[in-house]
C-alpha cells in the first residue's frame, strides 16, 4: 500500500481492561476524524505541511490526548506545551517549548519556521512572538481537564510518599531517569 498520512496519539501503558468500549470508540472517532482531515487536504492537491498542521489541530483540540487541550500538568500545576514541525522539501523547521497560552502550539511552531529566522522559541518569548504574528491565544484554563489534574495529584502524592524512603530513587528522579509512565497521556 502507498500511504499518504500517518498519525499517532501517544504511546504508553494503555490497559485494555481499563478501557471502556465508549472510551475506545471516542479515541477511534477522533483519530479517524484527524485522518480524514489530512487526507482531504492531500486529495485536493494540498501541501503535506498543511495536512500535518490541520491534522494535528484535530488531535490538539481533543481532550483525549496529551497535547494542547487535555495536556498533562507540571509540578506547579500548569500546562506547558511543546510542538515542532519540519518541511521535508526545504529542511526548514520550527518549534516552540514551554508555552502556556497558545491554543494550537503546532501553528506557533509553523509560525516560528515561516515567520522568524529562528528554529526554536521558548516560554514567554515564544508566546509574545505568537501574539505578534496572530496565532490564537487562550486563557491557560482552556487546557484544564479533570482527569489530568487528578493524575497530577496522584503523582504528587506518590512523590511525597517516596520522599526519604529511597535515596537511589530520589537521585534517579533528579536525573530524569525514573520512568513513572506518567508522560504519555
Amino acid at each position, binding site marked *: *500500500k502507498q500511504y499518504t*498520512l500517518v498519525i499517532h496519539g*501517544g504511546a504508553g501503558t494503555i490497559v485494555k481492561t481499563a478501557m471502556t468500549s465508549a472510551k475506545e470508540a471516542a479515541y477511534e472517532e477522533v483519530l479517524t476524524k484527524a485522518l480524514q482531515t489530512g487526507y482531504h487536504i492531500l486529495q485536493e492537491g494540498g501541501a503535506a505541511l498543511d*495536512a500535518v498542521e490541520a491534522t494535528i489541530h484535530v488531535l490538539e483540540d481533543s481532550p483525549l490526548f496529551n497535547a494542547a487541550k487535555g495536556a498533562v500538568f507540571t509540578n506547579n500545576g500548569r500546562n506547558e506545551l511543546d510542538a515542532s514541525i519540519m518541511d521535508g522539501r526545504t529542511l526548514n523547521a520550527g518549534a516552540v517549548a514551554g508555552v502556556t497560552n497558545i491554543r494550537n502550539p503546532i501553528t506557533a*511552531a509553523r509560525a516560528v519556521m515561516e515567520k522568524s529566522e529562528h528554529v526554536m522559541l521558548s516560554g514567554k518569548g515564544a508566546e509574545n512572538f505568537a501574539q505578534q504574528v496572530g496565532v490564537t491565544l487562550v486563557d491557560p484554563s482552556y487546557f484544564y481537564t479533570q482527569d489530568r489534574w487528578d493524575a497530577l495529584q496522584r503523582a504528587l502524592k506518590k512523590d511525597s510518599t517516596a520522599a526519604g524512603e529511597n535515596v537511589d530513587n530520589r537521585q534517579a528522579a533528579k536525573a530524569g531517569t525514573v520512568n513513572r509512565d506518567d508522560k504519555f497521556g
Partner: protein
Amino acid sequence: TVGCVALDQQGNLAAGTSTGGMTNKKFGRIGDSPVIGAGTYANNESVAVSCTGWGEFYIRHVVAHDIAALMSYKQLSVEEAAAAVMAKVANAGGDGGLIALDKAGNMAMPFNTEGMYRGAVDRHGNIEVKIYK
C-alpha cells in the same frame, strides 16, 4: 503526545509533533518529542518521522534523524530503519513509539509499550486505526 507525517501529491514530506510533556515535570524541562532531529524530522530524500515516548532517550539517540540517516547511508527500508532505532531506545531502557513515512509512501509504526494510539490513510482513502499491539 500527538504527531503526524504526510506525503503530498508533489512528493513532499512533512512531519509535526505536539505534546504536553510529562505529568509532574519540574525545572522547565523540555523534552519529549518536539525537539527537531530527536522527535520530529522530515527530508524529501528519505523519510518523515514523529515520535512519542520517554523524551530523554529520544534526544540522546537523535531518533528521528537516525532513521533518516540509516535510510540514506545504509539504504535500509523505512521499516528496517525504524525498527533498528527503536531497538536502540529499548536497549538503553527507553520506551515509546514513532510513526515514519518514506518518500514512496511506505510507512512504519513501531512501539515498545502496551499500546500506541495510531492510524494511517492510504492514497485511496482507506483508513486504519489501532490502539493495542
